[in-house]
C-alpha cells in the first residue's frame, strides 16, 4: 500500500500516458507538489506519494497525455437503472459554469436550470452542493468566531478549538498538501469538513428522512465536482458520518458518505452516453426541493476568494449585529496570487473595534511564505483561504479542458533573453 494514503483511499488517480508524453515539462511547471519526475525530453512520470491528485497537470498538458484513471460512469448508469436505488447527484458550484463547454457552449455560461434538467432526465435526485457550502459557512464561520472570541477578545469559549490563523479546509488538494508537507501545522485547518464532506451526511440523513423518504442504505450519493482530488477525499475512511449516525439507530450497513465522484468531464460523458444534451433539455428549477436552495454566498465558493467573501458576509453579521452594506468585496476577487485585506469590525456587545486580517491564496505553492510566518510565530492573519488550483475550482483538474489554458508560449517566452 502506498504510504502517504490511508487504507482504502483512492490513489494513483492521475497518470501520464508514456506513449503520448513528449517530455515538454509543462506539467512540471503546473504541479504544486513537485511530484513529476523525468528529464526534459524524456517520458515523465508522477510520483504518487507526493501527488495531491489535483489534476492541474492534466488540464494543462498540451498533448492530452495525462489521464484521470478513476472512471465510474458505467457504474453510475447501472445504479440509475436500478429501481431500488435512489441516486442522488450532489453538484458543486463550479460545474454549472463549465458543463456547457463540453456541449459546445461558451466558457462561463451559467446553466444551473439546464444542468438540473439534464440530471433529472438521467434519473438523478438533486442536492446542490451550494446548500452544503452555506452549511460549511455556518460551521466554519462559527468556528472562526469562537476562535476570535477566545484568542482576540480573551473570552471563555467552550469546546476544543485549534489555533489562529484558521485555514479553510474546502479544497482536498490543499488539505492533502498540509497533511503531507506541513503536518505540524494541520491544527490550523478548520475542523469543518469541506462542502462534499457535509453534503454526504445531509443527503443520507436529512435527505433520506425528510426529502426523498427512503432508507439511507438505498441512497447512492454521486458527487459531481470540478475536481479530481474530490475522488480521493470522498474515499477518506473517516468520511462515514451517515453510516455511523444510523448505526446508533439500529442500522448495520457501512458505506461512505459520498459513494462515488464524477468530474465535470465525467458527467458530460455520462449525459452523452444517455443521449442527453444540456442545450435542448427541459430546464428544471427545483423550487420545492429544500436541498437545492442556496444563497449567493454558496455559489461563489467555486472561485478564488469566494469562501472568504461568503464567510465575511456571515461573520460580519454575527459579530456586529449588522449586515454588510456592500456584499461585493473587491479585495478578495481577481487573480493576484496572494490577496490580503483588513476588515474593521465593531462588536455588537460593547462597541469595541477589532480588525479582522485575512488572506486569500490560490495556487498552493504561493502559501509557503504564509506558512513560514506561522512557523515563526509572526503571522498577522486571522483567517486564510487556500485553493489549490489557480483561479479556484472553476479551473479545477476535473473541468473541461480548455485550449486557452495551455502554457506553450509562456514556457517559450521564459527562455528568451528579453
Amino acid at each position, binding site marked *: 500500500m502506498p504510504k*502517504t*494514503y490511508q487504507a482504502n483511499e483512492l490513489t494513483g488517480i492521475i497518470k501520464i500516458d*508514456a506513449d503520448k508524453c513528449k517530455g515538454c515539462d509543462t506539467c512540471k511547471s503546473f504541479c504544486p507538489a513537485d511530484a513529476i519526475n523525468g528529464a526534459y*525530453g*524524456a517520458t*515523465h*512520470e508522477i510520483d504518487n506519494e507526493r501527488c495531491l491528485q489535483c489534476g492541474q497537470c492534466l488540464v494543462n498538458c498540451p498533448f492530452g497525455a495525462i489521464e484521470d484513471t478513476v472512471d465510474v460512469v458505467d457504474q453510475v448508469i447501472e445504479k440509475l437503472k436500478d429501481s431500488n436505488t435512489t441516486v442522488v447527484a450532489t453538484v458543486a*458550484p463550479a460545474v*454549472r*459554469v463549465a458543463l456547457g463547454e463540453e456541449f459546445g457552449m461558451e*466558457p*462561463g*455560461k*451559467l446553466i444551473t436550470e439546464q444542468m438540473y434538467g439534464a440530471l433529472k432526465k438521467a434519473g438523478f435526485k438533486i442536492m446542490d452542493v451550494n*446548500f452544503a*457550502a*452555506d452549511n*460549511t459557512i*455556518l*460551521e466554519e464561520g462559527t*468556528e472562526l468566531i469562537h476562535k476570535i472570541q477566545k484568542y482576540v477578545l480573551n473570552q471563555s469559549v467552550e469546546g476544543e478549538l485549534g489555533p489562529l490563523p484558521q485555514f479553510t*479546509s474546502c479544497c482536498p488538494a490543499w*488539505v*492533502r498538501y498540509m*497533511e503531507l508537507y506541513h*503536518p505540524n501545522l*494541520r*491544527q490550523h485547518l478548520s*475542523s*469543518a469538513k469541506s462542502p462534499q*464532506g*457535509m453534503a454526504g*451526511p*445531509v443527503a443520507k440523513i*436529512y435527505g433520506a428522512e*425528510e426529502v426523498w423518504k427512503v432508507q439511507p442504505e438505498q441512497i447512492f450519493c454521486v458527487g459531481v465536482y470540478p475536481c479530481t482530488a474530490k475522488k480521493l477525499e470522498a474515499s477518506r475512511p*473517516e468520511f462515514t*458520518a451517515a453510516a455511523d449516525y444510523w448505526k446508533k439507530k439500529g442500522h448495520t450497513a457501512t458505506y461512505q458518505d459520498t459513494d462515488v465522484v464524477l468530474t465535470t468531464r465525467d458527467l458530460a460523458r455520462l449525459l452523452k452516453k444517455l443521449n442527453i444534451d444540456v442545450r435542448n433539455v427541459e430546464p428544471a428549477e427545483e423550487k420545492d426541493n429544500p*436541498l437545492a*436552495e*442556496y*444563497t*449567493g*454566498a*454558496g*455559489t*461563489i465558493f467555486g472561485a478564488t476568494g*469566494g469562501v472568504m467573501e*461568503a464567510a465575511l*458576509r*456571515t461573520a460580519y453579521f454575527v459579530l456586529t449585529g449588522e449586515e454588510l452594506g456592500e456584499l461585493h468585496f473587491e479585495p478578495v*476577487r481577481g*487573480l493576484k496570487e496572494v490577496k490580503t485585506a483588513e476588515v474593521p469590525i465593531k462588536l455588537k456587545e460593547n462597541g469595541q473595534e477589532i480588525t479582522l486580517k485575512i488572506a486569500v491564496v490560490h495556487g498552493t505553492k504561493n502559501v509557503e511564505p504564509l506558512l513560514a510566518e506561522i512557523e515563526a510565530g509572526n503571522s498577522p492573519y486571522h483567517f486564510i483561504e487556500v485553493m489549490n488550483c489557480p*483561479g479556484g475550482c*472553476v*479551473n479545477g483538474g476535473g473541468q473541461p479542458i*480548455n485550449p*486557452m*489554458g495551455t*502554457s506553450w508560449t509562456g514556457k517559450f517566452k521564459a527562455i528568451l533573453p528579453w
Partner: protein
Amino acid sequence: MRYSYKEKEVKLNRREFLGFAGVIAAFLWTGAYTVTDLIVDRTKYIKMRTAGLYQDDEKQAKRQSHHNQSLLNMYKKMNFQPLSPMAEELFHTHYVDRSVL
C-alpha cells in the same frame, strides 16, 4: 528504473529541420510573437467561468449563508446548532499526519 532517459525519435530530415529553424528565427527576429499576447489571454476562460459564478451570486434573492431558510430548517428539525456535539459528529473532522503513515 524510475523513468526512462531514452529520448523520443524525431522523424525530420535535414532540409525540413533547416526550414523550421529559418521560420522560427524569422518569427523571433521580427518580434511577431509578442502580438500573440494581445490576442490570447491565457486566463480568459478562468475569468469567464468566474464571471458566471458572480452572476449567479447577484441573481440570488438571498446572498448570505445565514439566510438559507432550508438550511436553518434542517438544523431546527434535527434540533442542533453549528459546532454542537451533533454538528461535530456530522460536519467536523480531524486531519492525519501523512508523513508518518
